[in-house]
């Protein structure tokens, strides 16, 4: 029959203990049953009044709350709806003298055929996360966006051997990843670098490499490359262009398809520098240019024909203008005609802003049957940015400037 225990005042204790009336060992456990047993059992409640609460204290020993059939659907619940009030489940071991004095919250499922031990975090109508062991997925520890470790999206996983995986994205320092980025280290480190490193500390084995690798899916995939970027300013990319015979490239853009290619190496090792200053030009007949001391810049009267000019530094009037301070390999050659017998001094020279490079000869002494004489000149020239270089022919001692250019070539490139 229902009944109440009344008249218990503050400071009174109600004690339930088993005492064997005849003394001796107690061989069965004692129980405090709240609820009803027998047919049509009803739920029982252990309720703390407002302002008080229910405290369960113990001396040495264990307080266990266990649910067995038919009560195996019961949950242990803390519920509060008082505004501004925090509900706390606390496990506290206050001893500070013994390293074994742990405070542990343990979640354990029955075994390999059981469920998952996990913690579930939920904002009603909002975000949801779970963290724990996924018993259906090789016992991976997981952080997911679902109600259990096997629901939602795997955000972070780890094997028991410590292989940590972020299947979607992983960011250090910032929760906002750059576009199309899955792994990022974004920091505002004033005066020190923001750095990603692969380090192998072994120094005993030549196979103990430290490697940073980029890899695509295969021949039908995209490129593998790294990007170097000054924000809002300049970018360079370097890597393998999967759409250009797997050549290794450096470009001036944020990918291998953007900007200009500044370096290209084929898989066979042939290297080109498509924007490196390099030019080649020639001129055909140009009559009466020198012979009596006229110092003639080849390309002046008859424009040179440009064969190539990779960096737009050559003018068909015969002038090369250096874009940067460097050393340039320059070469010139020419066949000069109508060489009179008196024309015994001649020089083919490369004239740069800083100095001349000359080939001297006696044209009249070295003519072919058509009274033509050839000359060649070459130089590795130091040039400052915006310096000029021209190919000049100067022949002396003739009666007049009647010597001709039959043909001439001028070419060069930035060497070092």
């Amino acid at each position, binding site marked *: 029959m229902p009944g109440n225990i009344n008249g218990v005042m503050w400071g009174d204790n109600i004690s339930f203990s088993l005492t064997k009336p005849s003394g001796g060992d107690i061989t069965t456990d004692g129980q405090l049953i709240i609820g009803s047993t027998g047919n049509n059992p009803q739920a029982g409640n252990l309720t703390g009044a407002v302002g008080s609460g229910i405290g369960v204290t113990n001396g040495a020993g264990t307080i266990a709350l266990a649910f067995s059939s038919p009560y195996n659907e019961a949950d242990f619940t803390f519920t509060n709806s008082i505004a501004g009030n925090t509900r706390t489940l606390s496990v506290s071991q206050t001893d500070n003298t013994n390293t074994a004095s742990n405070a542990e919250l343990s979640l354990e499922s029955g075994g390999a055929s059981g469920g998952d031990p996990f913690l579930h975090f939920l904002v009603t109508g909002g975000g949801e996360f779970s963290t724990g062991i996924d018993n259906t997925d090789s016992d991976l520890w997981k952080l997911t966006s679902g109600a259990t470790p096997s629901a939602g999206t795997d955000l972070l996983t780890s094997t028991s051997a410590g292989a940590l995986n972020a299947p979607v994205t992983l960011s250090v320092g910032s929760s906002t990843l750059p576009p199309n980025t899955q792994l990022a280290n974004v920091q505002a480190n004033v005066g020190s670098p923001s750095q990603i490193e692969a380090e192998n500390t072994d120094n005993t084995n030549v196979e103990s490499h430290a490697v940073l690798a980029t890899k695509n899916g295969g021949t039908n995939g995209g490129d593998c490359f790294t990007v170097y970027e000054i924000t809002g300013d300049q970018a360079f990319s370097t890597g393998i262009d999967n759409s250009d015979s797997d050549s290794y490239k450096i470009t001036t853009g944020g990918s291998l398809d953007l900007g200009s290619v500044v370096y290209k190496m084929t898989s066979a090792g042939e290297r080109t520098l498509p924007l490196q200053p390099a030019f080649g030009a020639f001129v055909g007949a140009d009559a009466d240019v020198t012979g009596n001391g006229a110092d003639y810049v080849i390309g002046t009267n008859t424009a040179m024909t440009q064969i190539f000019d990779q960096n737009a530094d050559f003018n068909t009037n015969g002038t090369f203008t250096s874009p940067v301070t460097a050393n340039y390999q320059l070469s010139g050659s020419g066949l000069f005609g109508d060489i009179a017998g008196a024309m015994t001094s001649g020089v083919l020279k490369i004239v740069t802003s800083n*100095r001349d490079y000359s080939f001297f000869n006696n044209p009249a002494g070295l003519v072919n049957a058509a009274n033509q004489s050839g000359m060649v000149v070459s130089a590795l020239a130091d040039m400052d940015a915006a310096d000029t270089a021209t190919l000049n022919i100067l022949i002396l001692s003739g009666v007049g400037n009647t010597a001709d250019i039959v043909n001439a070539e001028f070419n060069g490139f930035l060497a070092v």
Partner: protein
Amino acid sequence: MKKICSKGYKISKPDELALERYLLVTPKKWSEDALTGMTNKAIKLIMRDWFEKYKETINGNITPDFSVIIPALTNMEGFKMNKIQVPEAMTVKRTEKASKEIWDNGFDIEDYEEMALKAVYEDPEGMMDWFMENKIFQRRKAMVKEQEVKFIKEKKAFPANEDAFIDFACNQNGYKNRKQSEELI
């Protein structure tokens, strides 16, 4: 016709001596040649990147006149060039103030040349300033390097200050700059 670099450019006496050590032409002529090179490069780069697209819009003949072509190209929809930036400035170790004007009245260029320069260079006048300052920097450095080795070999003491060194080197017996050194065969 347009004017560029009308604000001018000044050099010091040691600057001038270092330039004369190597140049056959005046600093102003060197600068004019530098500007010609810049203009040629600007026009060639615009033609390289945009002339084919321009040709697709033309029925009939194309006039071979840059004064027509360059404005047409730079006014095309979507026209854009990756502009050449002025590099980081270097510091010329001047003690004596730069006081001699070498670009008096600047340089005259065609309208289309100015258009091309502004399309290709972020700051054409800044670029000219940089070229000139770099030229002075490089020639002063080269002259010091060249002459220091000589004085050390001759066991001759020389000033540490760069301006004073250049003056000292030019006052040595037998010193000749390039123009003075060149002999006709």
